[in-house]
């Protein structure tokens, strides 16, 4: 008995920094409350209370994250998590993305069968997992957080129970995602085996002090870790699932995945490369550079021939992951800032396309190019937002996309990777081909016959395209807001640049 007490007193329970962890608790609690609230039957509860609770949870958590910005005392739970500005900025990004998804899903008929409470609750759980991932300091935390956000996402992809495509997408994502997770876990295990530690900081120390830089065990471990992450971030050649899953998943879920999943994975990649394996930068830098090139080329080529908008956005998302990777490759403060900034901007550029797709799907026009014909005349507000988003995604001026690309190019040139800058630019040139096709479909070539036929079909399908914008005020509002954001931050990017700088400094000071 005495010995047991003695042992117990030597084991120090980790101190829990409750204040810093509030936003995480809010998310966890909100997910449960939302789930239980959905047990209340009735239209008001289902359509009013449940979404309201979900939104309130996300906003409350977001406020707590925002209050904590610039708080330098960041290590919590004995260093398992680090709630610094990088974690906070990315968490805000996940929350914003989830809010967009909720707006898109709010009046979606598909959620009826699946259950609203489950949908919102799972979405909040995903955000919690991502927020944990963005603050992880430890290989075990990394894997836990990664699974916490991946598994609910598999379910969400299959949320459209009546549509075969959605179930297929869920299964596909489950299998590929599990493969990615398994590869990652294997890689993490080997890294632990080689360095003897799961902490990022301890791995860093082990790598810089001992001569294990060329150790095969370690290199295989790091390589497998990257492969696992590449699956999650849809970096070529591990991207094949992306267009299928994007196409099959319900549009609100796709909208969320397109931004948040990518952001979560890149937050981890930034931390992992910037904190843990920085000492062996010479080993992984050329590999990542090659992956970036392949990703940019494959993504842009793949997007060119697509008929479905969601597939097109899937491939374009692959290409965008390639651009983001450039900021990681150069492994500098400038590169990290460029990546964070581009990720923030990416949120704004990605809303309008999915809002338009949702509106067209509800109008019965489908999510293909044909559904866009004549949109310029029928719903100018949506068409303008979409046009601005396409221009921003392709990186043309007075949009935030231009500043983002400029930042990445500058980081690449500054990091002696001028040729990667050229690849970014060539990729952008290629991307204009398909982004402008979308614009052309909305504004041009919609001669009288084509548009009347298209709208005729839609009327047959039980919708009147003329009333498009008045029927979905929330979709129009969010699309216009996001498009306005991409222009405003294209002219006045100061606030986002500051956020990106703080985020980058907050974790790079660990290694500097």
């Amino acid at each position, binding site marked *: 008995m005495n010995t047991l007490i003695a042992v117990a007193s030597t084991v120090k329970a980790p101190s829990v920094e409750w204040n810093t962890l509030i936003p995480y608790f809010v998310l966890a609690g909100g997910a449960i409350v939302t789930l239980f609230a959905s047990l209340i039957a009735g239209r008001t509860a289902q359509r009013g209370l449940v979404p309201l609770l979900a939104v309130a949870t996300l906003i409350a958590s977001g406020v707590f994250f925002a209050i904590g910005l610039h708080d330098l005392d960041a290590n919590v739970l004995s260093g398992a998590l680090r709630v610094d500005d990088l974690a906070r900025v990315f968490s805000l990004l996940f929350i914003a993305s989830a809010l967009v998804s909720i707006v898109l899903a709010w009046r979606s008929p598909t959620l009826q069968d699946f259950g609203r409470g489950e949908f919102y609750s799972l979405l909040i759980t995903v955000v919690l997992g991502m927020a944990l991932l963005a603050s992880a300091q430890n290989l075990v935390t990394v894997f836990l957080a990664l699974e916490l956000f991946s598994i609910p996402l598999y379910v969400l992809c299959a949320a459209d129970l009546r549509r075969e495509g959605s179930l297929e997408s869920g299964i596909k994502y489950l299998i590929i995602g599990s493969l990615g997770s398994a590869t990652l876990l294997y890689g993490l295990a080997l890294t632990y085996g080689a360095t003897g530690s799961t902490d990022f900081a301890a791995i860093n120390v082990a790598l810089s002090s001992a001569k294990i830089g060329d150790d095969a065990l370690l290199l295989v471990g790091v390589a497998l870790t990257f492969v696992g992450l590449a699956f999650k971030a849809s970096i070529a050649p591990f991207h094949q699932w992306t267009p299928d899953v994007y196409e099959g998943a319900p549009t609100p879920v796709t909208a969320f995945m397109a931004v948040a999943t990518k952001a979560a994975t890149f937050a981890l990649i930034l931390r992992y490369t910037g904190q843990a394996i920085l000492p062996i930068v010479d080993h992984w830098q050329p590999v990542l550079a090659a992956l970036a090139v392949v990703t940019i080329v494959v993504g842009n080529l793949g997007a060119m021939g697509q008929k479905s908008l969601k597939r097109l956005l899937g491939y374009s998302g692959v290409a965008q992951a390639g651009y983001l990777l450039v900021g990681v490759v150069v492994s500098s403060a400038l590169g990290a800032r460029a990546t964070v900034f581009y990720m923030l901007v990416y949120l704004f550029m990605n809303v309008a396309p999915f809002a338009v797709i949702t509106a067209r799907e509800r109008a019965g026009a489908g999510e293909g190019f044909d559904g866009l014909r004549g949109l310029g005349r029928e719903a100018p507000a949506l068409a303008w937002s979409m046009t601005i988003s396409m221009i921003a995604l392709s990186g043309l001026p007075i949009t935030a996309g231009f500043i983002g690309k400029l*930042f990445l190019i500058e980081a690449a040139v500054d990091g002696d990777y001028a040729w990667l800058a050229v690849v970014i630019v060539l990729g952008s040139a290629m991307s204009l081909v398909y982004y402008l096709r979308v614009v052309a479909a909305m504004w041009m070539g919609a001669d009288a016959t084509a548009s009347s036929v298209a709208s005729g079909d839609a009327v047959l399908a039980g919708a009147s395209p003329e009333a498009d914008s008045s029927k979905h005020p929330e979709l129009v509002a969010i699309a216009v807001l996001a498009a306005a954001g991409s222009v405003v931050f294209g002219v006045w990017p100061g606030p986002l640049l500051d956020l990106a700088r703080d985020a980058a400094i907050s974790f790079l000071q660990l290694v500097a």
Partner: protein
Amino acid sequence: MNWGLTILLLVPIVGALIAALMPLRQIGGVAAIMTLIQVGFLIPIVLDFKIGTELTGFVDELWLPELGVHYSLGIDGLNLFMICLVVLAWSIATFAASRHEFAQPRMFYAMLALAEVGTLGAFMAQDLILFVLFFDLLLVPFYFLIGMWGKDTELGNSRRATATFMIYTLVGSLLMLVCAVALGVLSSTQNGTPLTFEFADLAANQVGNSTQNWLFVGFMLALLIKMPIPPLHGWMPITYKATPLPVLIVLSAVVAKLGAFGFLRIVMPLMPHAVDSFQPLLLLLAVIAIIYGSVMAFSQDDTRLVVGYSSIAQIGFVLLGIFVIDAKGAEGAILQMINHGIVVIALFLIIAFLGERAGSEKLSEMGGLAKNAPIFATLFLIVALATLAMPGSMNFVGETYILFGAFQTKFVWGVVASIGVVLAAVYMLRMFQRSMHNRGSAGDEATNSRSRELDSGELGLLVPAVLVILALAIYPQYVVERVEPNAAQTVKSVTQPAQPVALDTDGGVER
């Protein structure tokens, strides 16, 4: 902060927004009147201009501190008259457009205004990234203007035209973006100076010789495509045929000049060594452009292409003037940019009027149009004579300066280029005769009914342009003395580079 130039830059957009609030039928008229407000903002700027190399209305604000990008605008002798040309061209083009109905007029005038903002911004920019930003911005409005309101021709439909235009300019623009970023970053790393993209700083801290050479190639391609200079002129025929005439006025008269302007503003001061090493190639291209453009202009049936190819020849002269690297040559190049801009405005107006009368823009279907239209014929003749650089016109002054510069430094090139002067007379007079005098293809009766004097609206468009041509012919000194100091300074930056250039660490070696 000095707001003058910023306001000038934003007036077109404000005007388009005000016009967009009007009822559909009045949008064009209101948009046109709004362009006159710009003239009001421009006049004090021109009157305030002091002869010398100092920047007027200079604004310099740090815009993106992280990236070293400044919001920096200013007017000097290089761009003063280009900006006047922009305002004049857009005003006339908007008035010309308001005489026609365009589908979705709100968007049309908004895009036209956006194009003006891009052009003005590029001409006024004193920061390399800002220049590239405005230069690339032009892609957006012209994509819509050509794609949505262009017409289908035998060379392909309007979507094909806009795609061709986009692909050509895009490749150049984006290449220039990388080279611009590289120029700034390498200038700061090679010289150990803080990162900045301002022209003045980049000129003072130049990059090493071999770096200059590869950067030069990127800038050169982008600028030559915009001008356009053969063999990079592939977008010109289909674009010229498809583009609506009011848009073509600004595209040909002003936007194409950005290419030549870029050589004077960016390439010569920032990459003087490369200018020196690439001089023979550029001179060759200039002379090819002069001869090729003239010969092609002579053999075209479509009046738009006559003017299009003659523009290639004229812009060839400009390029020649720039790359003989002589103060007189550079001055002549700037004068010629102004001259050509104005005559092209007038020529495309004339083509519009001819087309409305003959029902076609082909020379073979015109003829005899002067019969009942003496005023039209007279105005056309004045424009034609100015285009072929009749002594007494400012075009004559410009070409003389260019050739003078050429004879001083590159005698043989000057002799070859002189042929172009003769050829210009041939193709311009051919166009004038075929359209105005030859017996009409449809017979006398038809010619009689087709030939019609200019109405007041048409006169109101064409007369201002002709008046400017005459005013410049009478008093070219006003322009010449304002252009001279900057032209001399730009050339001096090549002949006597400001500083010993930095050591070459060529991008891939080390920070």
